[in-house]
Each structure stands twice: as structure tokens, then as C-alpha cells.
């Protein structure tokens, strides 16, 4: 079952899917990639944001993306608090911070899961918006508009974050903190404060990505488990901390998944993306655009 038309469609849909993956991974690219915080609860925060968006959409009929933006400041604060706790309890005490940090964030993820279940029940939830459930026609190719929204948001986030990290003082400080904490201290910036802000931004981005998550597909409380592998896969494949790498890796993943789904056995799709990751790790351990 092969035709050029199918391949073309698979690639187009794959690129869009990849952009969606990029959007949900980009926060992790900062928190884990740049700051080295093993944020295993990232997907749980993502789902939490989705439920927040659901609430705003369901009760007050607010557009999901707008709701995501409204949640962003809240998540920024949440990120700052989370990093503070992480720093005080693990990073400062040194030694096996990574191992216990992972366990800590796993615990946080579980607690979030249960809180969502208690509040919203186990059923899946979705939102309504004018762009959900419609498609654009390009000849005989039809593209779901929500996928285009994901594409636009991912592009926007990538461009904005890349610009922020290279153009502003704070952004440069964030990149510097990833490489040379000591040097940053000499520059007169407090690395802990810089990291705190960076983590806040990463979490604020998660709020927007959470909106996208529920726009693209319905969510349920334990959805985060699926995204642990997927988001970390993207970030590691990208090369830690590389924003543009995140976009590229996510698109490669999306296209690979889409092509396998369309042209080969659909049931092999998850294995293909992770085999790709292992392949990249074996050949180029620092990731596609790694430092």
C-alpha cells in the first residue's frame, strides 16, 4: 500500500504532529535540558494545565489557547515554588541529587494525578473551540485546523524562546548558568535566582502547551505516563537545552511516526520513535544539536 500522495500526506501530517510534540517538550528542554533538573513531573504539569484549561473553557467558555495564556502566570509561580523546593532539598545538599530528585518528581506526578482524579473523575475531558473538529482543504489533502494551531503555537514558542535566550540579559544568563555557574557568579548574577526564573518560564510554557494538549486530543488523568517517554525522548534527541534542536527532533519523530502509521504497520509506531532515539544516542550521544 504505497503511493506518492500517501507519502506526501504522511509527511505533512507528520510535520504538524512533530510541531505538537515540540510544543509539549519545549518546557522540558529548558528545565531538564538547560537546568539539569530531572523534571519527571513535566508531563503531569502538562496534564494539570490541560485540566485547568478545561475548567476555564467549560465554565466560562474561554478559548482554550487564551485560557492557557491566562494560566501561564500561575504556572510561572508554580515553577518558581517547585524549583525553590527542589533546590533547597536536593541541589544544595549535592551528592545524589539526581536520583532523589527523580523520585521526588515522580511522587509529585502521582500526587497531581490523584488530585485530578479526585477533582474531575477518571473520565476523559475535552474542550470546544471554533478550530476544533474542522479541516482545511488543500486540493485532496485535508489538514485538521487544530493541528495547524499546534504548528503555529510550536513555531511561536520556539522563535520567542530562542530570541529570549539569545537577545535578553536574563536569557543569556540562563544559557550561561547551564554551562558555567561559577562564571555567572563572577558576572554578578545569582545563579540560583537565574535558574529559578528559568524554571518558572519553563513551567509557564507548560501551561500553554497544556492548552495545546487538550486542543489536539481529549485528556485523562493518567495521560502523563505516555508523555514521560515521549517528551524526554524529544529533549534528549535534540541535544540537551537546544531549543531549535527540540523542534527538529520533534519533527523527525512526528514524521517517522506518521510514515510508519500510514505506510507500514501502525502497531510498530511507538517502537520506531524510541528506536530512533536509541540510534541517535548510539551515534551522536550529545544529541542532534547538542553542545
Amino acid at each position, binding site marked *: 500500500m504505497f503511493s506518492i500522495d500517501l507519502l506526501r500526506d504522511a509527511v505533512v501530517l507528520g510535520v504538524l504532529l512533530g510541531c505538537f510534540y515540540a510544543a509539549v517538550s519545549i518546557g522540558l528542554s529548558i528545565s531538564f535540558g538547560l537546568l539539569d533538573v530531572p523534571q519527571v513531573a513535566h508531563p503531569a504539569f502538562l496534564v494539570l494545565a490541560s485540566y485547568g484549561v478545561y475548567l476555564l473553557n467549560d465554565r466560562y467558555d474561554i478559548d482554550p489557547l487564551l485560557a492557557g495564556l491566562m494560566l501561564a502566570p500561575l504556572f510561572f509561580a508554580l515553577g518558581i515554588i517547585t524549583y525553590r523546593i527542589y533546590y533547597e532539598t536536593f541541589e544544595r545538599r549535592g551528592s545524589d541529587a*539526581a536520583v532523589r530528585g*527523580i523520585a521526588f518528581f*515522580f511522587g509529585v506526578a*502521582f500526587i497531581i494525578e*490523584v488530585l485530578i482524579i*479526585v477533582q474531575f473523575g477518571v473520565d476523559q475531558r475535552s474542550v470546544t473551540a471554533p478550530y476544533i473538529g474542522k479541516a482545511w482543504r488543500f486540493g485532496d489533502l485535508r489538514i485538521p485546523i487544530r493541528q495547524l494551531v499546534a504548528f503555529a503555537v510550536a513555531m511561536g514558542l520556539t522563535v520567542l524562546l530562542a530570541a529570549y535566550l539569545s537577545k535578553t540579559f536574563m536569557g543569556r544568563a540562563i544559557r550561561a548558568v547551564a554551562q558555567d555557574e561559577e562564571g555567572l557568579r563572577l558576572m554578578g548574577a545569582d545563579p540560583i535566582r537565574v535558574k529559578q526564573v528559568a524554571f518558572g518560564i519553563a513551567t509557564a510554557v507548560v501551561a500553554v502547551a497544556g492548552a495545546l494538549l487538550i486542543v489536539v486530543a481529549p485528556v485523562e488523568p493518567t495521560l502523563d*505516563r505516555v508523555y514521560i517517554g515521549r517528551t524526554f*525522548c524529544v529533549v534528549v534527541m535534540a541535544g540537551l537545552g537546544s531549543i531549535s534542536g527540540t523542534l527538529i527532533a520533534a519533527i523527525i519523530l512526528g514524521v517517522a511516526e506518521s510514515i510508519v502509521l500510514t505506510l507500514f504497520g501502525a*502497531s*510498530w509506531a511507538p517502537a520506531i520513535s524510541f528506536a530512533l532515539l536509541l540510534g541517535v544516542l548510539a551515534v551522536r550521544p550529545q544529541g542532534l544539536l547538542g553542545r
Partner: protein
Amino acid sequence: MQRRSIAFWLGAVVFLAAMLAMTQLVRNEYPFFAGYVILQFVVLAVAWTILGGYAGYVNFGTNAFFGVGVYTAVLLVKAFGAPLPVQIATAAVVGSLLGLGVGLLTLRMRGIFFSIATIALAIIIETSITNFRFVGGAAGIQLQRPPVTAPFDSYVKMLFFVQALLVVIAVAITRGIQNSRIGRGLHALRDDELAAECTGVPTLRLKLLACVISGALMAAAGAPAAMYLQYANPDSAFNLNYSVSVLAMALIGGTAHWIGPVLGAILLGATQQLLAVTISSEVNVLVLGVMLVLFVVAAPKGVIGLVQRQPKRRGGSK
């Protein structure tokens, strides 16, 4: 040190004798059903600690190794009707090869890459099993138990004892590692990998060794699960809960000493069994989450850290 070894082996013999006596004396089967699960977690947590605790390399893919154990057993039963010891031994071999493979691929890199790779591994293997019709594929497979071997009067009691045997083997191996220079080398590389290398520690070889042993034990612990459930499906065999529970057990118990994961597994395993038959709700998951957070924040050295307030460390081993 010699005295300690004698005490340990004496303890192991007493433990096995007690377990055996229990299978002969207790008629009620429930303790064996629940006990089997707890013992299985003891093996997994102890095995996890070799790499995750001593070397500081977090294996997220406990479920991959466990599941591989389960399906090795399924395959052997389906294809050759192989007996239980063969299932377990083969599972251990397959698990060690898997550990070697992942290790070679990722143990050169920083710890977190290894963690991510183990997640990837779990998904790849689960997908492969899902597409492997001979062992039931996604639909799962029901298995028939062969007749039980004397002196046991029920298969579950026998599996319980087998798992107890695996506990002793796993603990003995782990204790051996801890007391040898391998254990000290692993600790050194956990503290500082470059310093360890420059001090002469062959870090890659030690990590690979730890990964291979750990993988073999985890897969061995999974093998009897096929006969315990008499059913296997990819969803249950590769459940992420194994990874998270085992990680939690090791950290709650403490990873500096082999007794840590044993205590952690018993504590958390028993709590989970208890909760499963009492509260029965989301609270179950909540307990795991809260316990994890509480312990890693408030008791960084786990239960053993709480017990021995003043960790009197010695140059030698214990």
C-alpha cells in the same frame, strides 16, 4: 567480617527454612499470594539497588527487565513446556544480555541518558511483544500450570518458596558486591565519576557488570510471574508501576546497604497489599506519591538512615 558472613548465611538458612515450614504448615493460601508479590518486589528492589543505589544510575526500565522475564517464561512454556527452573535461568540469561546491550549503548554517557534509554527500551520491547503473536500478542495468553512438585501441596506455595530462594540469591549477590572492591568502586563512581576514573576505577566495566547482574536478577524475578498469574499480557507485564514502585522501595529503604531495599520493599509492598484490600481507591496511588516525596525530602538516607542516626562508617566493610 568472617563472623558477619557466618551470621548472614545462618540468617539466610533460617529464613528459607521458615519459608519452607510456612508452606508446609499454613493451609490458608492468601499469605502466599500476597507474600509472593512482596518477595518479588524484594528481589526487584535489591537488584535495582546494585545499579541505582550503589552506582547512582537510575533504571526506569525495571518493567522492561521484569516483562522480559515474564515473556521468556511464556515463550519457553509455549514452545517446549520447559520446567520452572529452566524458565528462571533462561530469563536471567536474557535479562543479563539485555542489561549488557543497554549498558554498552548508554553507560558511557551521563546517568540521565541511561535512564531515558531504559524508558525507550521498555517501550520498544513491549511493542515487540505486542506484535509477537506466538506469545499471545496484545490479546494476552492464558497458561496451564504443570502439576506441583513435592513437598508442596499447591503451586502458589511452591512459587512463593522459589521467590524466597531468589530473594536469598539476590541479597547474597548484592551483599557480595557491596563488600567487595566492586561495591567500593561503584560508590566512588556514583560520588564522582571522573575522580573515580583518575583514581584507577574502571568505571565502564563496573557499570556494565552492575547492569548485567541487576538485569539478570530482575528478569529472573519476573519469570515465575507467568505461572503465578497463569496469564500474561503486555500491559500487565510491562506496567510502569513496577518501575516506579521499585524505585520508591529502594529509596524509601535507603540505598547505602542491601538491607535498605529489602526493608523498603517489605514496607511499601506490604502497605500496597494492605491498601489494596482495605481502602481500595485513588488513595492507593496517593500513598505511593506522598511516601516518595516525604522520604526523599525528609529522610534522604531512607529507613536505614533513620535507624542508624549516626552512620558510623568504617574503612572496612560490613
